[in-house]
C-alpha cells in the first residue's frame, strides 16, 4: 500500500527522485535553492539513493553536469529557482536541442531587482522558449507525481526531451502537506530504466552538440518544433497510465465547474487552489463562474484550451509574471493568440498579480473576477490591470 505522510513538499520531491532511482543529481546549494537538493544530498550520503551527487560551482554548471550525465545515458535531476534558473538559461536551450531527457524541479520565484526570493512565475515564463516540456502543479502530491511522469515522458523514445516541473516557491516548497508516497515496486513498473538510444560510448564515437551552419540550422529547429509539439500525445498517454496505476489523474487543461459557466477564471500553479475556494463561494451566491487550470504550458495545449473556453463569454486570466512594455502577462497573451481565429470565443481580460510572493486571498480572487466582468462590459483603457497595487 502507498503510505500517506505529512511531508514538506520539497522533501516529497526528493523522495520522488529517490523512487525514480536517479543516477546523477547536480546542484548548486545557494539561495535561491530549496530543501529538494538538500534532502537529496542526505539520501545519497545515507546510502538510500545510489546516485552521483555533483556539487558544482554555479547553476550554469549544474545544468551542464546534468547535460553530460544525460548524454551518457544517466537519469539526471536538478532543482533550481529564480536567479538560479536565469543563470542556467544558456544551457537550457542546448539540452533540449540535443534531445537530452532529464527532470528539473523549478520552484517558481520572482527575479531581481529589487532582491526578492519569494514566489511568482517570472522565472518560469522567462524560459518558456527554451524547448523544454513545462508542467505546472498546484500541490505537493502533484509535484511528486509529475516528477515521476517527467522522467517517463522525457525518456520516451518518441520524446527525448527535458522536463521542468514547476511548483510555486514557498507556497508549495516550504509547506507540509499530506502526501501519498507510491510503492517502489509500482514506480519501478511505471518507470523502466532510462535507455537513451545514442549515448556517449567510447566504442561508438558520436559528436553531440556539433556545428550547425546556416544550411542546416533551420532544419534542426524544424525538427525541434515538430518533436516538442508531438510530445503532447505521449504526455497524455503517460498521464492516463499514471492515473490507471496510481488513481490520480492529470490533463493539460483542468476544469473546475467550468463546463457551462459564462465567466471563467484561468490560473496556474498553487493559486488555483485558492481560486477554487473563491469559485465555490461565488457559485453558492448564484454567480455563473468556473475555473480553468492550465497544467501543461509547453507544449501549449491549443485544442484543449479552445475546447474548454468555447462556451464562455468572459475569460479572466491571472498572470504571475509581466512582459514589460508588452501585452501584460505571457499566459494571457498566448491565450488571446490561441483564440484569435476562433468563431466562438470569450472576451479575454488580463490581470497580473501575486508578484514576488504577494498572496491573493479568496476575497482577492472574487475581486478579480468581479472587476474582470466589469471590464468585459465597459472596457478598460489599459491592456491589462495589475491586481492589488497601492496607488
Amino acid at each position: 500500500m502507498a503510505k500517506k505522510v505529512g511531508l514538506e513538499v520539497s522533501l516529497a520531491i526528493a523522495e520522488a527522485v529517490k523512487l525514480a532511482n536517479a543516477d546523477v543529481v547536480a546542484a548548486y546549494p545557494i539561495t535561491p535553492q530549496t530543501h529538494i537538493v538538500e534532502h537529496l544530498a542526505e539520501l545519497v550520503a545515507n546510502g538510500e539513493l545510489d546516485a552521483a551527487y555533483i556539487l558544482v560551482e554555479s547553476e550554469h554548471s549544474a545544468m551542464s553536469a546534468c547535460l553530460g550525465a544525460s548524454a551518457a545515458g544517466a537519469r539526471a535531476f536538478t532543482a533550481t529557482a529564480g536567479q538560479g534558473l536565469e543563470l542556467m538559461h544558456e544551457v537550457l536551450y542546448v539540452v533540449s536541442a540535443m534531445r537530452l531527457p532529464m527532470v528539473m524541479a523549478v520552484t517558481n520565484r520572482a527575479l531581481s531587482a529589487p532582491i526578492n526570493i519569494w514566489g511568482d512565475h517570472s522565472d518560469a515564463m522567462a524560459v518558456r522558449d527554451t524547448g523544454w516540456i513545462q508542467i505546472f502543479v498546484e500541490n505537493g502530491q502533484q509535484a511528486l507525481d509529475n516528477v515521476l511522469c517527467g522522467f517517463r515522458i522525457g525518456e520516451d523514445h518518441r520524446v527525448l526531451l527535458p522536463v521542468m516541473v514547476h511548483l510555486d516557491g514557498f507556497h508549495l516548497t516550504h509547506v507540509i502537506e499530506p502526501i501519498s508516497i507510491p510503492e517502489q515496486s509500482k514506480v519501478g513498473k511505471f518507470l523502466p530504466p532510462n535507455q537513451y538510444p545514442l549515448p556517449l560510448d567510447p566504442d561508438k564515437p558520436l559528436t553531440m552538440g556539433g556545428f550547425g551552419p546556416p544550411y542546416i540550422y533551420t532544419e534542426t529547429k524544424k525538427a525541434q518544433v515538430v518533436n516538442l509539439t508531438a510530445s503532447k500525445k505521449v504526455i497524455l498517454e503517460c498521464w492516463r497510465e499514471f492515473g490507471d496505476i496510481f488513481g490520480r489523474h492529470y490533463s493539460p487543461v483542468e476544469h473546475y465547474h467550468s463546463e457551462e459557466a459564462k465567466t471563467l477564471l484561468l490560473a496556474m500553479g498553487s493559486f488555483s487552489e485558492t481560486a477554487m475556494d473563491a469559485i465555490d463561494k461565488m457559485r453558492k451566491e448564484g454567480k455563473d463562474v468556473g475555473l480553468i487550470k492550465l497544467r501543461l504550458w509547453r507544449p501549449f495545449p491549443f485544442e484543449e484550451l479552445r475546447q474548454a473556453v468555447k462556451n464562455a463569454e468572459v475569460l479572466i486570466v491571472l498572470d504571475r509574471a509581466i512582459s514589460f512594455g508588452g501585452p501584460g502577462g505571457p499566459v494571457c497573451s498566448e491565450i488571446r493568440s490561441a483564440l484569435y481565429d476562433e468563431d466562438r470565443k470569450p472576451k479575454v481580460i488580463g490581470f497580473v498579480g501575486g508578484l514576488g510572493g504577494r498572496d491573493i486571498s479568496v476575497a482577492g480572487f472574487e475581486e478579480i473576477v468581479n472587476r474582470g466582468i466589469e471590464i468585459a462590459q465597459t472596457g478598460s483603457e489599459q491592456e491589462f490591470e495589475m491586481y492589488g497595487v497601492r496607488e
Partner: protein
Amino acid sequence: MAKAEGELAWQELEIGSIIAEPGSASEYKTGDWKSQRPVLDKSKCNKCGLCYIFCPEGCIEEEADGYFVADLSYCKGCGICDIECPKKAITMVEEEE
C-alpha cells in the same frame, strides 16, 4: 555520409542532430573562410616543423621531401605559422592576389 549535410531534410536528421559518423568534419571544407593564405619560401625553410606544431587547424602536413605545407582546403588564414616561423620562410598573401 550518404548525403551531404546541406542536402538533408529535417526528417533525416539524427536525434538532437547527433553526428554518428566519426571524423566527418573533414568533409566540411573551411578553407574558403580565409582572406590570406600562407606561401612557403622553400629556400629559407629548414624543415623544423614549428608551423606544423602551432597550426590550430592541424592542416599543415609533412610532405615526402620533408617540407611542411598547409592544406588550403582547411587553412583559415590565421597567420600563426607566419608569426612562429623562425626562418621567416612563410609570407601571408592576400587571397585575391
